């Protein structure tokens, strides 16, 4: 008899339907074969299913079992076909009916229990899009899948439970999504109020957080670049519903959601070390996996010691920074991951680190400095909206102010302003497919950044003297829009443009 169980297969963030066909033949020698381009993990599910069934006190049928994963030309990977295969075999030997239009998804443990499996959210979303009624997932992944409304998410602990459920001995209650404490809260190490001085850098980070712009901080060692970046998550607003789903999808497909985890509502903060490979940063592999830039989607990608990153790795950022997504093409697969991240980079101004330092002498030659800076190419520097210098903190002032940090603004206060500025942006872009100023395309800029004649003049003059590229010119318009939003100002005025112009990179003669 032939039994059909519906399951799914993933390719990046897209999901396709897989029909798991289980046939138990009444002739020939006993065998258990899986066909339909399974990879090693799928083929090994034979042993897991067999042992799990025996350990759930079921007689494994000594007959010819053939499992087909249709369509047969799509390579299957992952261990989550265990559950549909086991359900197919069980339905044959125990003679119960499998509910129509339900998806089964999960990896089996040898003792018959279901393990947390990556991609539960994607499977649930697929079920919803295709008008399925229910999805059966492992207990520990159910929280993740239950985010999707409109379908029944059945949490299954083990095979024994599902057998009794199909025999109508017990009931499994569909799980209803409950907002829980976010698991992904990056520990906020510093509060903005703890950082003394550095007003300009703080202001730049505030603008960046409000409009989603990129920042490069340059300064001597120990001046507080890393500290500023680490304090940044504290002033970022939480993800809104739409963003949260986007981020959770990426994390779900990469298997970065812990057992029992659910929607991610805090902004991701990724700070990879500079020994990272290109595939690690932008994603890659035979079956392309998301890289750090995609894991930092809608959040912060902090690259400390920006100059130390291999040049090829940094250059790979160019296109995703501009487009907000990256398509990784391999001969087997073509996958697109979103990568709308905020780049926060920190670097020293020269190899010794003390250029422009008031207290110490820089020992680098001009040649060395030029070579050091050349590591960051023009196109990359051009794509960074805000360039800010982080000067050395005066030790005398530091020791005086160290005890009373109260007079500084706390992260909470700054965050309030940022939330307001983001609200303005959301209202403005309600009919566009963008959310923040950094995403504005040319037509949006034309529509929403209205400069009066005076500020237009300032900008044109600046473009001439600074030799601004067309891209930089538009970037300044975007930043001025964000500065205006922070002040809740309807129009972009000349002081906004003037401030935006301050954050251009200094040029070395």
């Amino acid at each position: 008899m032939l039994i059909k169980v519906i399951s799914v297969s993933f390719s990046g963030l897209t999901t396709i339907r897989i029909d798991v066909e289980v046939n138990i033949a009444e002739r020939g020698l006993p065998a258990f074969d899986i066909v339909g381009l399974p990879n090693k993990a799928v083929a090994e599910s034979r042993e897991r299913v067999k042992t799990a069934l025996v350990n759930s006190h079921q007689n494994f049928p000594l007959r010819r079992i053939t499992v087909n994963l249709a369509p047969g030309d799509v390579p299957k990977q992952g261990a989550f076909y265990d559950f549909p295969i086991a359900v197919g075999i069980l339905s044959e030997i125990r003679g119960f009916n499998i509910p129509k239009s339900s998806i089964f998804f999960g990896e089996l443990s040898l003792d018959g229990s279901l393990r947390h499996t990556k991609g539960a959210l994607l499977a649930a979303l697929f079920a919803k899009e295709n008008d399925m009624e229910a999805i059966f997932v492992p207990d520990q992944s159910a929280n993740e899948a239950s985010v999707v409304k409109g379908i029944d998410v059945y949490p299954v602990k083990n095979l024994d439970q599902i057998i009794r459920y199909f025999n109508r001995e017990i009931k499994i209650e569909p799980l209803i999504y409950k907002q829980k404490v976010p698991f992904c809260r990056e520990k906020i190490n510093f509060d903005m109020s703890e950082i003394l001085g550095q007003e300009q850098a703080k202001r730049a980070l505030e603008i960046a957080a409000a409009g989603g712009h990129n920042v490069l901080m340059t300064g001597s060692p120990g001046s507080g670049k890393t500290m500023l970046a680490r304090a940044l998550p504290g002033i970022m607003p939480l993800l809104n519903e739409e963003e949260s789903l986007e981020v959770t999808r990426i994390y779900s497909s990469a298997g970065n959601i812990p057992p029992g985890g659910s929607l991610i509502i805090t902004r991701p903060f990724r700070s990879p070390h500079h020994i990272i490979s290109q595939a690690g940063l932008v994603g890659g592999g035979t079956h392309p996996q998301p890289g750090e830039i995609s894991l930092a989607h809608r959040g912060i990608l902090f690259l400390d010691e920006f100059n130390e990153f291999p040049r090829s790795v940094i250059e790979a950022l160019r296109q995703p920074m501009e487009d907000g997504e990256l398509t990784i093409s391999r001969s087997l697969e073509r996958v697109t991951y979103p990568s709308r991240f905020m780049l926060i980079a920190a670097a020293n101004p020269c190899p010794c680190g003390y250029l422009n330092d008031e207290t110490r002498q820089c020992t680098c030659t001009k040649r060395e400095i030029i070579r050091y800076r050349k590591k960051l190419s023009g196109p990359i520097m051009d794509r960074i909206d805000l360039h800010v210098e982080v000067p050395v903190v005066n030790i005398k002032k530091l020791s005086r102010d160290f005890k009373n940090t109260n007079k500084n603004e706390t992260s909470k206060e700054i965050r309030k302003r940022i939330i307001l500025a983001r609200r303005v942006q959301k209202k403005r872009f309600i009919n566009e497919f963008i959310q923040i100023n950094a995403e504005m395309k040319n037509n949006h800029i034309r529509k929403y950044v209205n400069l009066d004649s005076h500020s237009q003049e300032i900008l044109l003059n600046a473009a001439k003297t600074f030799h601004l590229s067309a891209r930089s010119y538009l970037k300044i318009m975007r930043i001025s829009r964000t500065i205006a939003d922070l002040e809740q100002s309807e129009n972009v005025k000349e002081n906004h443009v003037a401030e935006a112009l301050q954050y251009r990179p200094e040029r070395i003669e």
Partner: protein
Amino acid sequence: MNRYWQIKNSEERIELGKKGENIAASFLKKNGYKIIKRNYRIGHSDIDILAMDKKILVFIEVRTKSETARGMPEETLTVKKLNRMKKTAELYIAFNRYRGCARIDAVCIILDNSNTVKHLKHYKGVT
């Protein structure tokens, strides 16, 4: 070949095997198996016992060891032997145009010097 085979002379070995097969056959009969053929030869290999377990055709390989020998009879069922058993069974099915369920079993026996059974195990579906 291990030393066991070298020491025992072949007549003794065949005799031990025969005894084991007889014990296995009576054990299977007691368990409701209908024995069809014994020592059925196809090509180079033979099937120790051919029986019907209700509607399933069962190919049974009997492995016997004397208590004085070291090791368990189960150990002698190597992958190579199992593959050959599978091939033999498939040949039988093809030659006789058998349509229906089939299975390969093994019965492992240890006998002591007075021919009493020290160990008997029936493994269903070994391939």
